[in-house]
């Protein structure tokens, strides 16, 4: 019998601390598999954020940094500049990347930093117990938008992939989702492609991954997938936002 699916060597064989059904775990796998398949685990360094995935450094089998909240792109820049042939990625949540780390992600992209950012958008601050994120949907109830996000006072959600696409240094930007198996397959393809572009030294790549937070959304894991599908995807349309390797900008 042939093995059709088994655990990637890109992840250490340890249990994770994620809540049941949290899709952080799926995204970890996609990143790790990509690195393994591209044969670069040996020269890869990942940067974990501050957020639920803070302990990612305990899960990925390649070298890892734990960065200050929001600063992963700057840390990754330091790593890449110090060791230019390394393959460097940041793994960041929406609080980390789209709130406190806005300047760092914009400038890493503008500089065309040869790194890959995996941006996990779950519309909430998971780690700290469910506060509003810059990506929280209008009307969404969170700890700090208890009456639903009021765009009048709390502002409008940021579409990160679209914003980053306006920057010349960003060469590949795609938004994917892990709400279903077909979408997971597409997400994998996008992540792998981003790393390939990094290996070619073409510039900055970012994959925004729509992800669930069953715990702070107050939904069962399967319900959370549905909520993502029905609420997030309409606001955050999937697809390639920019592909400078082909000249495509959407």
């Amino acid at each position, binding site marked *: 019998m042939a093995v059709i699916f088994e655990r990637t060597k890109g992840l*250490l064989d340890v249990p994770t601390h994620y809540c049941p059904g949290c899709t952080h775990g799926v995204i970890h796998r996609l990143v790790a598999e990509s690195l393994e398949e591209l044969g670069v*685990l*040996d*020269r*890869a*360094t990942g*940067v974990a954020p501050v957020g639920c995935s*803070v*302990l990612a*450094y*305990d899960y*990925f*089998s*390649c*070298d*890892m*940094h*734990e*960065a*200050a909240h929001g*600063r992963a792109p*700057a*840390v*990754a*820049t*330091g*790593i*890449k*500049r*110090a*060791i230019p042939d*390394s*393959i460097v990625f940041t793994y960041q949540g929406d609080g980390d990347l789209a709130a406190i780390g806005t*300047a*760092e992600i*914009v*400038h890493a992209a503008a500089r065309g930093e040869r790194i890959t950012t995996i941006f996990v958008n779950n519309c909430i601050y998971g780690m700290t117990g469910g506060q509003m994120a810059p990506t929280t949907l209008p009307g969404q109830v969170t700890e700090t938008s208890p009456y639903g996000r009021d765009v009048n006072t709390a502002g409008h959600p940021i579409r990160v992939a679209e914003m980053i696409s306006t920057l010349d240094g960003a060469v590949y930007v795609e938004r994917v989702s892990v709400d279903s198996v077909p979408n997971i397959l597409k997400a994998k393809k996008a992540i792998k492609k981003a790393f390939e572009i990094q290996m070619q030294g073409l510039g900055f790549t970012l994959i925004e991954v729509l992800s669930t937070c069953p715990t702070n959304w107050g939904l069962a894991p399967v319900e959370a997938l549905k909520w993502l599908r029905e609420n997030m995807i309409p606001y955050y349309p999937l697809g390639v936002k920019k592909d400078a390797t082909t000249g495509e900008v959407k």
Partner: protein
Amino acid sequence: MAEKILMKGNEAIGEAAIHAGCQCFFGYPITPQTEVAAYMARKMPKIGRVFLQAESEVAAINMVYGAAGSGVRVLTSSSSPGISLKAEGISYIAGAELPCVIINIVRGGPGLGGIQPAQSDYLQATKGCGHGDYKMVVFAPASVQEMVDLVQEGFDVADMYRTPVMVMGDGMLGQMMEPVEFKERQGRQLPSKDWATTGLRGKREKHNVINSLFLKPEELEEHNRKLQAKYREIENNEVKYEMYNCEGEVDIVIAAYGITSRICKNAVKMLEKEGIKVGLIRPITLWPFPSKAFEEMCGKTKHGFISVELSEGQMIEDVALAVNGRAPIHFYGRSGGMVPTPAEIANKIKAIVGGAK
């Protein structure tokens, strides 16, 4: 012996770092230290090294974190407000035990303050720049030559103890030109950076992790105790200071560092002529503070000590902790970019010791 050339303090910092093998520079412009970055921008690309102007001081210090974690020598430079912005990052660097050199060419504060020379970041540098129980080594050069020497030494100390090292000057030291030479240095025997995230490269089984998070209190406490032990070791081994005119009995001892110490030396000479004998202790490391030098002088000074600062009374706390009640401590400070003349200092001292003997 290398040739002596005239160099601006800020440019000498850059050249010293290059000599020390600094591989990456990350910084953000701010007066009065912009020449450090400008110098690195000219030189580093030419020798295949990295100059990168970051989008902010916050980004710069986190780039330092990344590069230091990757095992290369790395420098960043800023001035007071920019150092405040680096506070979180410095705490992370100390927590993750990464070696790097940080320059602070101090200007007047608080807030936007001014751009003229000051020493008002003493407490920040030695006590409270960032949260948590950590220390960084703080060097305070008093000349451009010493700036060069201490930047180079700074990289060694950083690597030796896996700790951030700050070299703290002021607008005057940064902007002035003085003769410098870049001597061949006898480097220290340094530990290998087997903890660095170079990629596994088939050489390691276990991945390396650069990190300052310890969720379990027992583990965080253990980590803190390890840091504290390292700090005690640094306190034992790395104190640097100069004692000037401290032989025998003196009327009073000045405590002054950096540019101020030079002015004080001139005051010492002036007072000498008037028959007043003044010693001078010049801390070269602000942390670890040369407490022993002060203890030593406690019994030998008639009128105690005077801390002379370009600040409103900051180093005086460390002087007081060292003297520990054994002698009176006086203070003379200017701030906001005002720099005292030797005569001013001499007058203050005469007022204390009661004129010539």
